[in-house]
């Protein structure tokens, strides 16, 4: 704990900003029912399009205004933070597990295993993400679980490539060849000796990829293929507000700002984690 506090004190201004925003985001997600002034789906058609408090005709009853169904925008942004947190974490976990596993196998075994996996990587890289994601969502159907699965299985490639590269390097090291010599089986070598040495890189990559996962969920929901509109999500808020962009800009702009701030914060935090855990990965 002391070490953590010391590290935090030494962090850059952007890292501190990122950590603060991320902390607020996670706090909102966890304590949404206590923080939100209204229910996320509390419809009141007589209170449609109330502007935010800082705009003309705004009211302190609805600090960030109301949307086309009279729902409180602040409440929906708070509840939407839950979806982005869940998707961000779970999709990254799926990608990390899948990518790390394939990267380890490709790097360790080489040969035809490596060839097959790397050809799959090439195929994945040649398809635009949104195209692949929309096709998968059309097959699986919309819903939170399916969104996590789709973003997870379309996002494993960076992990696989990073882990493969590090595995290729590690397997030539003496402690690995020594393990092999004394009769350790492949699984033991991979799990006990290689994985602990590469997992940091994968985790650092995961923190950086989390913002992509959140943006992907928002994009899919915006396009109507992600989370059903019965759940308050930032993507669905941006989508539903676009018809009223000229007359009620806050419905689209404010959740869009939330997406921007959270993704920026995650990137700042990811950079900080990388710098702290493995300064060698810092880009010049």
């Amino acid at each position, binding site marked *: 704990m002391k070490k953590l506090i010391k590290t935090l004190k030494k962090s850059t201004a952007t890292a501190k900003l990122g950590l603060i925003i991320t902390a607020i985001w996670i706090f909102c997600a966890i304590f949404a029912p206590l923080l939100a002034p209204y229910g996320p789906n509390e*419809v009141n058609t007589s209170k*449609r399009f109330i502007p935010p408090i800082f705009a003309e005709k705004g009211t302190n009853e609805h600090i960030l205004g109301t949307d086309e169904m*009279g729902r409180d925008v602040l409440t929906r942004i708070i509840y939407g933070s839950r979806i982005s947190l869940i998707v961000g974490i779970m999709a990254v976990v799926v990608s990390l597990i899948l990518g790390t596993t394939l990267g380890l196998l490709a790097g360790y075994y080489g040969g035809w295993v490596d060839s097959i996996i790397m050809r799959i990587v090439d195929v994945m890289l040649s398809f635009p993400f949104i195209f692949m994601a929309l096709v998968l969502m059309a097959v699986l159907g919309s819903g939170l679980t399916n969104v996590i699965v789709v973003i997870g299985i379309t996002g494993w490639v960076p992990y696989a490539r990073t882990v493969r590269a590090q595995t290729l390097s590690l397997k030539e090291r003496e402690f690995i060849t020594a393990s092999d010599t004394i009769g350790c089986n492949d699984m033991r070598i991979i799990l006990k000796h290689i994985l602990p040495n590469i997992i940091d890189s994968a985790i650092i990559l995961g923190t950086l990829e989390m913002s992509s996962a959140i943006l992907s969920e928002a994009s899919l929901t915006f396009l*109507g293929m992600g989370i*059903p*509109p019965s759940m308050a999500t930032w993507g669905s808020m941006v989508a539903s507000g676009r018809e*009223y962009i*000229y007359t009620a800009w806050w419905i689209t702009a404010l959740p869009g700002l939330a997406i921007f701030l959270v993704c920026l914060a995650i990137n700042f935090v990811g950079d900080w984690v990388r710098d702290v855990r493995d300064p060698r990965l810092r880009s010049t």
Partner: protein
Amino acid sequence: MFSQKTTKSILLLMIVVLLVVTTACGKNTDSVNEKVVTYAQIMDPTTLDVHRATGDQGRNVYINICETLFTYDSDWNLEPKLIERYEQVSDLEWVFYLKEGVKFSNGEPFTSEVVGWNLDRGVDTEYPRQAWDYAPYYDKWEAIDEHTLKIYTKIKAFNFPLQISDIPMLEPKHSEEIGEEAIGTDIVGTGPYILESWEKDQQIVLVANENYWGGKPNVDKYIIKTIPEQSTQIAEFLSGELDIIEGLNFESLEMIKKEEGVKIDSRYETRVIWLGFNTLDWSPNQELQDSRVRQALNYAVNKEAIVNDILGGYGRQLATWYREDFPAYDPNIKGFEYNPEKAKQLLADAGYPNGFSIKLQSNTGSTAKGHEISQAVAADLAAVGVKCEVLTEEFSAMRNILINGQDAKKAEGLYSWSWASKPGMVGNWITGLIQRTGITSYNAIEGYEEIADAIFNSETVEEYEGHLKVFQQMLVDDPPFLYLPQLQKIFAISERLDWSPNEHYYIEAVHMDVIEK
């Protein structure tokens, strides 16, 4: 390699060529004297085949190309168009005298055989659910001569001209040459416009028919663009790229009215929106078999709030969807007032004191505000214990689910849809929505097949109107739908156009003129 002088000459030549090419390929390839009108709609037609198309998008296009036997005056009285006159010669026989000298745009003559071919195609049994009004009545035709046609009906139809007034006339020879598949994108008619091109999901271009029997129209080129997003439509309209947009949200009017050169108009649509109850035996919600449940859902929804808050007053709630202009309209029929307590009581009486769960398929494009209305309905239903999950479908996906989709079984317990017809034409509402073979019918409520048969087999006007009154009361006592408002359509029109929407159902370029370019 070259001298400086030669190099400069070559560069100058390249610049000149570039300028000439870009100018020639530039946006404006029209003649400066050409009158062009551009209109936007939210989606492409699925087909231009006049006998298969459903929805406004197709009709807004083909009505300019293929004409009907009749048209309407401003009071919606039937007027001959491609016919001179008609007479009923017996209970089951009608004779129509066609207008002479009318030709299709490819030069083929408009004759009795052409009308007969079109009537036959309109009731082709390959498409049994297509809801043409005359289908229950029509038997066969006989060409007395080139411009005199006798039509035989299976049952007495005292308003038969109204039933066939709506069917557009397609040119048979060209249609048979190109084949069934191609008709959807290549139609030839007698109308004032000819289909020049159709870039899918982009635009359809119609050009004036120089040889139109009614005289060459004022507008030389009529472009129908497909722009799904209303905000994009508004932006293009305000920048002068579009002359007509319609189906606007009332919230946009304040902003649009501030612009110069714009006029706003509104008309009550013949379209009424509703939520359908799926009462077929495979319906995911067997609770809907009980009429008390269906009544309860109608009482649970605050329809006045929908009209006032969501539609901004641009709409009105009818008792059911039986419009005032339909025959034998009964103003004494009382609809469903907003009464959530009564709704809860009815649900309890039906055995659902704690409500139940249901899915509502809502589509995101057929009418402005359709999706918002669905969400408002879901909130009202939740207040009486009916937990409603709103599923969002694109309009085209919804159309594929519902239309002729009964066998696919993809419709949920509740689905949002709408229907429209010309005034007086209640027949296709019954054939399309009520009868089991209806194109969008998910209705299996007892008694409706019988009343529909009684209506269509009426021998006299009195009998016909009597059955229609019974039908109207049934729509309340045993509702097949959750009734929602009749809409007003809001138009924004460029003042360079000499045109206002009339009471006629579709936008026709032949009524337009450009005041200034």
